[in-house]
């Protein structure tokens, strides 16, 4: 399982309120009835960080990739939704991937 900070996308110094806010936002986007696996992952991450001592355990006794995640998010900030069109190749590749996925039944996590 990925580290809970990265799953929720919260800083190691985030407090209870911030973690809860972020968790609720994610659950709103991926509710259990529509994305049960993702919800389970968010729930587990939230439970792992919901208490000050648990958070400290996660920080001190493990490693996380939240800083790298923040760097990637910063890179993604430069994008704006729907401002452009994809190429013909990108669409073709997406269709081919969907067709292949149907017969291999291998879907990426989440």
């Amino acid at each position, binding site marked *: 399982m990925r580290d809970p900070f990265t799953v929720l*996308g919260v800083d190691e110094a985030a407090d209870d309120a911030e973690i809860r806010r972020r968790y609720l936002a994610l659950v709103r986007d991926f509710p259990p009835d529509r994305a049960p696996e993702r919800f389970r992952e968010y729930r587990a991450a939230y439970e792992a960080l919901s208490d000050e001592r648990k958070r400290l355990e996660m920080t*001190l006794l493990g490693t996380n990739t939240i*800083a790298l995640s923040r*760097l990637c998010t*910063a890179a993604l900030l430069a*994008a704006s939704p729907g401002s452009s069109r994809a190429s013909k190749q990108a669409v073709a590749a997406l*269709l*081919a991937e969907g067709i*292949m996925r149907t017969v291999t039944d291998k879907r990426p996590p989440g």
Partner: protein
Amino acid sequence: MKKPNQRGPVSSASLGALAARAAEALKQQRFKEAVELFKPMIRQDPRPEWKQSLAEAYRGRARALAAKKMFKEAAMVVENTLGSDGTLADPVFYLHCLIRDGQHQKAAAHVRQYVGTESTLPAEERAILEDLAAALLVAVPLGPDPARAPSAEQARWLELAAASREALAAWVAGASAQEVERQLNRISLRSAFRPVRVLLKCLITMPQDADRSRQLLEAIPPESPFFAFREAVAAAVLAERALDADRWHRLTPVQQAFVAQTRNLPGTAVQFLARSAEAARSGPSALFGFLFKQPDLPQAEVRSACLNLLPQMPDRLSQFEKHFGPLPDFERHRIQALAAEGRGDWAKAERFWRAAVAATSVDDGDDRQAKLSRGVILRHLAQLAAKHPEIEGDGDGFLDDPVISYLERSCQADPDYVAGVLELIGHYRADSRLKDWHRLVDEAVQRFPDNSALLLQATESAMARKAYKKAAGFAHRLLKIDPINSGVRRQMIELQVAHARKQMRAGRLELAAKELAAAAEWERPDVPSALLRIAQALVELRAGQGAQAQARLRAGVALAGSGVAGWFRAALEGELMKLTGSSAGLLRQELARERETPPTKEAVMAIVSALGQSDTGENKRAVASLLLGMRAWLLQAAVIDWLPAEFQALAEILARFDAFDVLAEYARTARRREPGNPIWRFHEIVARTRGNTTRLTMRETEELGRMVDAAVNREDFRAANRIERFLSGGDDAPLRRRRSAAALLDTLDDDDVPELFAAMLEGMPKGATDSVRGLVREFGRDGAVAHMVEQARATPGGPGMPDPVLRELCQAVVAMAMDGSQPRQAPTARRSGCDA
């Protein structure tokens, strides 16, 4: 397999033999052989059933090839089943093979002939075929089949596919929303091409109506070939905020490319995302190197990302410090400790964690965060110590339990953490450190007066100290917080009934009745207590309140399960109260009458539960005599198929009240039923020796040692502990503590042992020497050794020592006392002792 001769005609006799062989090969799933056999047969006599069998053999062969990922070959084999109408035996499987082999053009051409035609395919297969057909026909431009004229429905399919492709092309080319919309209107919402319409609709209407887009997208199910497209469109249009790293990394590279283009992500950002993902896939070292070479990124974030990689590659620590400046001691030790854990070097991990704890004390003084950090690390050390004997702890003696000592330190560092305190209480209780248990509970309950778990502990602690008023006070406080807590109510009733028994034994009926009236206050009306009913009834019987007492007694017996179980409970209570005369006679008569019914598992377990009360141990003789009367009935229950856990509870009770003959019969019967389970043999040995380890033969000792090893190997620590506890004469010290001592001794070379013993014996006082000589005179040399082993076992360090080591030490003491010689060395015994 040799191919059958295909040159000349086959005689009818040999054709029959061939048919039998072919059928057998098909049945045995030797498809290749079956194909080779059926082919010449059909050439000579094209019987429909043989043709059908050949097609079946081809299908089987193709599936076998596909299982080996030989999709191209599998597709070629299926093509052999091509019928005169141009259809194949297994069209969906064939389509899968073509797609898996990347032959999308051929796959599209294949599905073209199936769409819009009457088909014998089952509805589910047909739906899959149609979904795939739609996706393929959109992905691969295909005109009508020149070999045959399309039906009206087929022509419609091709028309919808063309409309879908044109709509996509318009969107790609940057056509206006109205233009794309116009194209989309050509795609029927009831056709298999509906997903294309939905996807493009979302792309052209975003980001104005996110909810509507979400609803539309949900119509494309995960099993659809358009689902990958749906996920990409959702990431492209639905993220209200900027797309975050988590969502990005959940996309496949193909989806990422689509999203990057659609969201107009700058090339530098795309490059960074791709390269960082690639570096992360290549391992921490590659990622560390990549991040180091990113001067344009925020350096605080780069530092944090690199710091998190260091436990996986502590050799980069100096490089990190050179670049970002020195780390605090605490961080350095933490990284080294995590790195040692990663290597499984537990001793080193312990050393670094302890250094980290020491560093927080120095670096941060009384800072709250530092205290919490110390608490977390020390608790972690306790957890590690419970799993890894290499963790030695920092107690004064080498037999101190490191789990407890680390938990104690953790509670000192972070005294506000209730879960930590409760964990330590649990360990004190398990380790029979009663003074520590009571002390900690007293302290904790003052610190956390409203914590129900601690109040329950405080109640139990006070009860164990026979401080009834204190226990009652805690129980009242607990019930204010948690009025339903049935555990504390039951305990208080039991405690008060125990007081009533004492009064009854002393002949003070009124006081006994008063105690029971007080016990009734703990009872909830909806959960009546059998024990209380029976006790009240017996007091009333003794007081001569016949009718009322009898009615109450029968009510109590009914609550206790009726039959043998209920009347045994009443008789047991009678014994504990030392009831005599007609009242005792009544109980005996009723129990004897009920014993005529054969035993059941539930009845026996109810008796076990009744015998498990604390008061029964204090009145062992009376209970044993009652149990003796149950002997014949209990023996009948030996044939019941007991689960090991049930058997264990039963065996403990039988052994506690010296019913070893019953236990022996149970163990023998269980062993006959299940000879492979060593636990039955263990109980057989316990019964034979009457629970006394001095009666063990050498063979039995070795057998039990092997049982412990086997139990440890299969990680059945409960069984291993149980056998070890028996071997050490009932000591409750946990296995890991004893193993820790054994592990310590195991680290010594065989040559070190005599030296160690000699050093220990040098300081032996003269008085001790005289005592040993006296023992030798009285019991002989071997007898003196045995006697001393027994005595040593009772010392605080004794339970931690493996038996052979204790024996060796005592032999050395005797040798030293008698003739001042060095002990006889027995390296194999030490080794086996440590293993045990």
